[in-house]
């Protein structure tokens, strides 16, 4: 049995009594594979041993969970809420035909995969099917990158993931047509717990788009806890787009790690427009010489949304390159937090790291926190970073007005221009269009002097 940590008395500010989930060990889905069974059991122990995060912890200092009604959540599969998936979410996001598609919920999945990809040994399926059909592979790749010890929600998702996606691309298999998956998570009071595994062997190549979404009209809280583990083998090439389109009642917690081996390339794109609150930990581990990782983030918040992205670029081998750009705009009473760190290990000379976070605050009561960081333990590196929080420049507005462009349109144009560097990094018209639509939709809410 794992050691229970000492409870330190915090009499001056007790956690609200409701800050405990009602999940039980009996909810662990039994695994036939002993390694998977052990992984889940051990994760459960870790989950129980970790305290509920509070703003006393550095990582949670800016994201307060006290309004989370933790005890009311039930596993989504038990609630079995039936809600049809909106047609626009099913439209292809990449420009070409998709080579495979998965529409999944907590307990169902509809999987299609091109026969020729199956023949090449590609696995692209939901987690429940993978547990039945590929337990050995799962045992090999699951939990290798994100450890349950990384946090309460990482442990929760490791132990209780109800569904997810497994993508495995064998050595030297190059997939031309993008793969697409959608997790549809309906239900108030539902806890959606997911685990996404992407594993590319040496010299494999694929583009994969995953979206998480839920109905826009739900009011009472829902929960998502998720893990994303991404392995890019030597010389492999992964373009990975994640869209976060949760309804604005969802409290979303994710731990993600992308590991890139020698000469591999990970192009990782995040789009976040949904959820009531998000706390996302995304880590890039460049573990092999010459590995390259690019992270691009788009977010646009309104109402009292709170999005917190915690990114880490770890240069753990020589001549590795990372390039991060996160851009966000904020409306109404919303808030964003970006905290980034570039770490260069002592054995990683000739690292080239870049990180930038740019925020456009469109309302007086919106707030963006931007905290870059560098930790460099070797010489002969090139690391640069930048963080800005700004407002719409009134000289720009006047210039556009003077050309007959009305105020609202002028502001929308400036906001679109602000996001253009992110759009430039997204090679899919469908994804760009999705972001453009959310800009238009959110800018319609924009009123002056708020």
């Amino acid at each position, binding site marked *: 049995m794992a050691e229970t940590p000492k409870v330190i008395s915090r009499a001056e500010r007790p956690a609200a009594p409701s800050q405990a989930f009602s999940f039980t060990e009996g909810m662990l889905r039994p695994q036939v594979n002993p390694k998977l069974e052990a992984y889940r059991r051990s994760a459960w122990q870790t989950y129980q041993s970790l305290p509920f995060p509070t703003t006393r912890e550095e990582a949670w200092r800016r994201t307060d969970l006290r309004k989370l009604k933790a005890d009311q959540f039930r596993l989504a599969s038990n609630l079995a809420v039936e809600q049809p998936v909106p047609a626009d979410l099913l439209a292809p996001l990449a420009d070409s035909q998709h080579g495979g598609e998965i529409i999944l919920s907590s307990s169902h999945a509809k999987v299609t995969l091109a026969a020729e990809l199956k023949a090449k040994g590609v696995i692209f399926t939901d987690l429940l099917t993978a547990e039945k059909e590929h337990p050995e592979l799962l045992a090999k790749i699951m939990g290798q990158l994100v450890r349950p010890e990384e946090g309460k929600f990482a442990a929760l998702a490791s132990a209780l993931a109800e569904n997810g996606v497994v993508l495995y691309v064998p050595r030297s298999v190059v997939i031309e047509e993008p793969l697409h998956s959608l997790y549809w998570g309906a239900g108030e009071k539902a806890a959606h717990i997911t685990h996404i595994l992407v594993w590319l062997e040496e010299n494999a190549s694929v583009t994969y788009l995953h979206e998480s979404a839920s109905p826009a009209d739900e009011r009472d809280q829902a929960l998502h806890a998720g893990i994303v583990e991404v392995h890019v083998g030597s010389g492999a090439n992964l373009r990975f787009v994640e869209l976060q389109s949760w309804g604005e009642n969802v409290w979303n917690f994710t731990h993600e790690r992308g590991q890139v081996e020698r000469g591999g390339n990970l192009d990782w794109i995040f789009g976040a427009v949904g959820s009531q609150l998000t706390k996302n930990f995304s880590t890039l581990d460049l573990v092999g010489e010459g590995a390259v990782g690019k992270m691009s983030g788009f977010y646009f918040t309104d109402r009292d949304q709170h999005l917190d992205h915690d990114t880490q670029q770890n240069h753990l081998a020589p001549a590795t390159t990372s390039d991060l750009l996160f851009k966000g705009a904020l409306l109404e009473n919303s808030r964003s937090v970006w905290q980034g760190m570039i770490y260069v290990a002592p054995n990683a000379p000739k690292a080239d790291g870049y990180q930038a976070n740019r925020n456009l605050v469109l309302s007086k009561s919106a707030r963006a926190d931007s905290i870059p960081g560098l930790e460099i333990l070797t010489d002969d590196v090139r690391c640069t970073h930048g963080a800005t929080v700004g407002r719409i420049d009134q000289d720009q507005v006047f210039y*556009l007005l*003077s050309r007959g*462009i009305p105020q609202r349109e002028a502001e929308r*144009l*400036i906001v679109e221009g*602000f996001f*253009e560097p992110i759009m430039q990094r997204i090679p899919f018209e469908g994804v760009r269009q999705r972001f453009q639509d959310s800009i238009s939709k959110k800018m319609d809410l924009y009123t002056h002097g708020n």
Partner: protein
Amino acid sequence: MNPVLEIINLHVAIDGKEIIKGLNLVIPSGEVHAIMGPNGTGKSTLAYTLMGHPFYEVTEGDILFKGESILEMEPDQRSQRGMFLAFQYPVSIPGVTVANFLRTAINARRRAANPEDKGIPIPEFRKLLKEKMDYLKMDPSFAGRYLNEGFSGGEKKRAEILQMAVLKPEIAVLDETDSGLDIDALKIVSEGVNALRGPDLGVLLITHYQRILNYIKPDAVHVMMDGRIVETGGPDLALHLEEHGYDWVREKVENGAAA
């Protein structure tokens, strides 16, 4: 010719401080009028006020465009009705291409005239843009660049004239369009303005130097000093100023005031 622009006893203040102190000026359609004057006499204030910049407060007087007062109009409405300001310091709009910006501006005009308008068809827009850019000897790649971002001084001013050519105003105010230009750029910009001259365009050319008037021949030259027009003449007035400076005008004003 009917006056396209009439400025009547205009008083303008910034933060309560009066900058323009009773300025009168009439520009008939089809004419080019130059306003010259030393620094700090309110020339740029006049330009911004004409376009409706919110920092400039009209405390007295009126501005009529085609016989209608524009004081209550927003800058975008003034533009849609046919007014144009070529900025001395055009700001950059990162991420917005010249083409995207111009198409948005054209469509805003069309929608102002007809709310049902569906916007300019893309092929028609491309043709129009190409024609105007050829005219101004601009490289086609210019259309895809972000507006004024990283533009040289000359490119910025050419981009202003391109906008003027595309938006076809009836009165164009050129605020120190010659500043910061080398002689080649000045020639190109001047040729652009000359090509747009015609019976339906009035131009108010604000300048510190006589140089640009060698290339754009004005119908009238006004001297502005301390917030007023103090001297008006023909093109030779500019040459006279070039040779003798502004002191004689100042003396004349002071003597006049004393008399």
